[in-house]
């Protein structure tokens, strides 16, 4: 669909993601009520849904944990290179 390659490895995933076409012009890809699943390394946007992160010294609510659990069922299919 869309990809970026050849960026130095020291860049953070979310930084590299900002260079993709999806991230530069999300309006070309997403209509109202459409979005993209990402893991917690990425920044949340209206078109980019990430799991809840545990705040320092705190914990997730039950609802947040349930949300993360169901999110993992859809977004783990793309975990690259570790699917075996």
């Amino acid at each position: 669909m869309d990809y970026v390659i050849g960026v130095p490895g020291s860049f953070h995933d979310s930084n590299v993601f900002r260079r993709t076409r999806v991230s530069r012009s999300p309006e070309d890809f997403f209509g109202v009520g459409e979005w993209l699943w990402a893991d917690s390394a990425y920044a949340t946007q209206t078109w980019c849904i990430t799991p809840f992160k545990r705040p320092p010294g705190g914990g997730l609510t039950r609802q947040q944990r349930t949300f993360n659990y169901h999110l993992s069922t859809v977004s783990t299919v793309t975990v690259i290179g570790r699917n075996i």
Partner: protein
Amino acid sequence: MPHNSSRKELLEALKDTHHDLVLARYVVLLQGILDELFESDSDDHTSTTSESGDGAISDSSMHSLSSRMSMESSWSSVLSGITASSLLSSYRHCSEEPAMYQRIFGQFIDAVCALHDEVEKSRVLNSRPKLSRSPQLHLLPEWALHAPEKFQRKLRISPSVFDALVKRIEDHPIFYNSSNNAQLPVPIQLAIFLNAVGHYGNAATREDQAEWAGVSVGTVYNCLKRTMVAILQHHDDAIHFDVLDREDQMERERAKQWVEARTCREWRGGFLCVDGTPFNLYQKPGWHGEGFFDKNSNYSLSAQVCMFSFNDDKL
């Protein structure tokens, strides 16, 4: 200092020998003519001096030739039949007749020319015993039927995706040559490619791939090159997105259905997924090396891939 191939060295040595031989032949011819001239008017005083002078020249040239020949006798293992020393001795033996050694020179020059052609035409200079091989490719079709997880572990894709890929790339002209020796079948070339790109580090050396597939290192290299060309041909078919395009709309709908089936109706809007992976580099780059140092303490290039959020084997 640039490295010269042994074939090039051999060809150059043969060329030099050829050149020296032609030169020596003319010197001997010249000497014969001068000898005849000298014999015809032997009373002449001036010709005596010229004879002694020429004799000195031809002596030295003969000396250089013989030393050259003794050096060239190291090639005698290569020269079949006629060796330098045997020619030299036969030359000395019949030194009485100029026509005779003209012929011998001619033979020697022809032999050197023939050898030059032979070296130039031969594909392998030093033949080696064939290494024994035990290819493991035959396991793949068996695994595809009875143990797809093993197939997937080796080639990193499922058998059905593999078949679909073969179907997409097998018509590419790069897999066809106009020679009597056809290339390896496309599925085998693709398998070698996938095994190579699915491994890194020690397991990904070309030698390892060659042993696994039972082919030579050069064949592995060719398979990788061809398969990459054939797959990149499909880049624009695979990497595209247009909101107005009908096929893309259908694909998007399929992704949404997949998400809905796994979660709930409210979540069906999330039809794309993103993730990244590092590609480790062989070593620290020379320019801005530290800039490539990643969180896993490797030097790498980063990649991000956005794709439809479904795990569908049917391409």
